[in-house]
């Protein structure tokens, strides 16, 4: 399990580095950090097979990295480089690494939901045995396409895992101002999906639930739904902490910070004797080195050439 701890820590440190360097004004695109939500990404994705597929939305760095997306290519994309994972055309909100099975994240809430269902449909029709995993937020659950897609997925018993990262806010608007007081997962259940609701900040809880869900859907039990309660630590978009705006209760913020997915997992591993200070420092050092190299490589990569701007509008 300490590999999963390492992955969470890596995502955290990557995003902290992005936040720190964002002020240099070299990453010139909107950026939505998932700091605080790492257990959802790592816990779920680690339950998937390498050949399984992942789709996500605007807050996708963690999902991309957990699925094995290339770190340097992601950072290069944020720097607008030709070597970026979307060749400089997408930025932070449009990540892809098909080799790793990360099939795309986009910037319109709900945009990838039916696309992921379509990928699951293809897997079923072609008998590939692949599971598709779709990450989305509590806000996305308000989109009509979400329900249309769950309906179709349930109707055809598609091999797909719907993962709702419920961080309780859509930008600055709390869930209570957007949805009535009924659980999100209950709606998914009514659509005929097998649902589980859990603390999304506990890595092993997430992993256990995801294992079960992936097993079920791969076995032909149809779409599965996980509602993971979690919390975004920083502002909706951008590198900063925005608690001064007062849209979230300080008590709630403090409570969620105390339930840091990484420190909770670290404490669990320590209690089991699987992690100590020296071990953690080794992990930290290795991650830092990897990040430094990735930034260095991304920043040294050339900007896209003017004459290439029209490439990729159509196939040749």
């Amino acid at each position, binding site marked *: 399990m300490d590999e999963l701890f390492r992955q969470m820590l890596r995502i955290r440190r990557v995003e902290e580095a992005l936040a720190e360097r964002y002020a240099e004004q070299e990453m*010139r*695109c*909107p950026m939505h950090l998932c700091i605080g939500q790492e257990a959802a990404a790592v816990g779920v994705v680690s339950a998937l097979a390498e050949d399984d597929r992942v789709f996500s939305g605007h807050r996708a760095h963690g999902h991309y990295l957990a699925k094995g997306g290339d770190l340097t290519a992601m950072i290069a994309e944020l720097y607008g480089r030709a070597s970026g994972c979307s060749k*400089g055309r997408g930025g932070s909100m*449009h990540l892809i690494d098909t080799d790793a099975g990360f099939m795309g994240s986009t*910037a319109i809430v709900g945009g990838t939901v039916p696309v992921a269902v379509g990928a699951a449909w293809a897997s079923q029709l072609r008998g590939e045995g692949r599971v598709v995993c779709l990450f989305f937020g509590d806000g996305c659950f*308000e989109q009509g396409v979400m329900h249309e897609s769950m309906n179709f997925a349930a109707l055809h018993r598609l091999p797909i895992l719907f993962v709702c990262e419920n961080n309780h806010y859509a*930008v600055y608007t709390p869930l209570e101002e*957007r*949805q009535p007081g009924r659980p999100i997962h209950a709606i998914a259940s009514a659509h005929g999906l097998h649902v589980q609701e859990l603390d999304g900040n506990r890595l092993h809880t997430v992993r256990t639930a995801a294992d079960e869900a992936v097993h079920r859907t791969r076995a032909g039990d149809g779409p599965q739904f996980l509602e993971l309660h979690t919390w975004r630590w920083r502002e909706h978009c951008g590198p900063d902490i925005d608690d001064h705006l007062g849209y979230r209760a300080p008590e709630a913020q403090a409570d969620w910070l105390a339930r840091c997915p990484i420190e909770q997992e670290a404490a669990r591993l320590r209690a089991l004797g699987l992690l100590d200070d020296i071990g953690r420092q080794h992990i930290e050092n290795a991650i830092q080195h990897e990040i430094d190299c990735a930034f260095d490589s991304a920043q040294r990569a050339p900007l896209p050439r003017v004459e290439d701007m029209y490439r990729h509008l159509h196939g040749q």
Partner: protein
Amino acid sequence: MASNPLADISPSPAVHEKTGIEAINDALVLCLQRDPTTLLIGEGVPDPKGIFGTTSGLRQRFGPQRVLDMPLAENALTGICIGAAISGLRPIMVHQRIDFALLAMDQLINNAAKWRYMFGGQARVPLVVRCIVGRGWGQGPQHAQSLQSLFAHIPGLKVVMPVFPDDAKGMLCAAVADDDPVIFIEHRWIHPLRGKVPTGYFETPLGKARRCREGSDITIAAFSYMTLEALSAARGLARLGIEAEVIDMRSVSPLDVPAVLRSVAKTGRLLVADTGHQSFGVAAELIARVTRQGFDHLRAAPASVTLPDLPCPTSHAWAGHYYPTAATIAEQALQVCGVRIGEAQRQELDKLQPDTPTDIPNPDFRGPF
């Protein structure tokens, strides 16, 4: 053409300098104040950032029943607003990016645009949909589109794009007072623009262009933010001895073709600058109409300056090649005027190149969105 675009609407004589943001906020306050059936709804309307400040303070002033946030359900909420509109309310919807309005195209096109017509005029849809064009800072393919031609193609929708703060205010008031659906497109680079704005409630008629600069050699008809680039271009052209008449079209649908025809009758030349893509676009439509109706006035083939037919790439390295500038407009204008681009022209065009990075509206802009 009246030199004062506000001449026929008798606003209160007092004027204040305001930004586009303040002017829009002002208009919303006045609309909510004068008509209790007016509602304001959109993702982020009452939040701490208040749609870039345009809706700040409105919930406190008019209450949570009239000024409200909405679920992330653009199509349903558009339909719900249409339902409210045909039932006696005047909803104003807001999309922080026009790209989000695409989720509501079914309701906008199949219902809002047609409700009055398909029921033989027995109903009306007084709905305003404010849509913000998010150019810059790597907004990229899904957050920076200029979709006016898409909406303007649909009979039954009015589509307007104010530039100057007084127009933003007066046209928003007019849009809210209008009994038909109006797509009110705000390019976000007009938000910080400062200008004189009359105080109090006034309406600036929709569908009327505004002449911003007089000239005798070429007509530059511009839409939205391109009006500002056209005015810069005109100053550069003047230094080369070419006097451009600049018309801020203000409205896409209805399109004020007569205003352009009057100008072209004088100048004999036309260049259209639009913030949208080239193909099947607003510039093409205006050129087609002027050519059909004013062919005899034209001394040269009209030209256009638009976005290329390409999604907006994210990398800042491409921003300067993707977005046309005052220099692009001036160069095109010279060509329409048959002026060979020599050393003097090249120098003047170089001066028109922006001196700040082309992916930000002003040097103070720091992101992150």
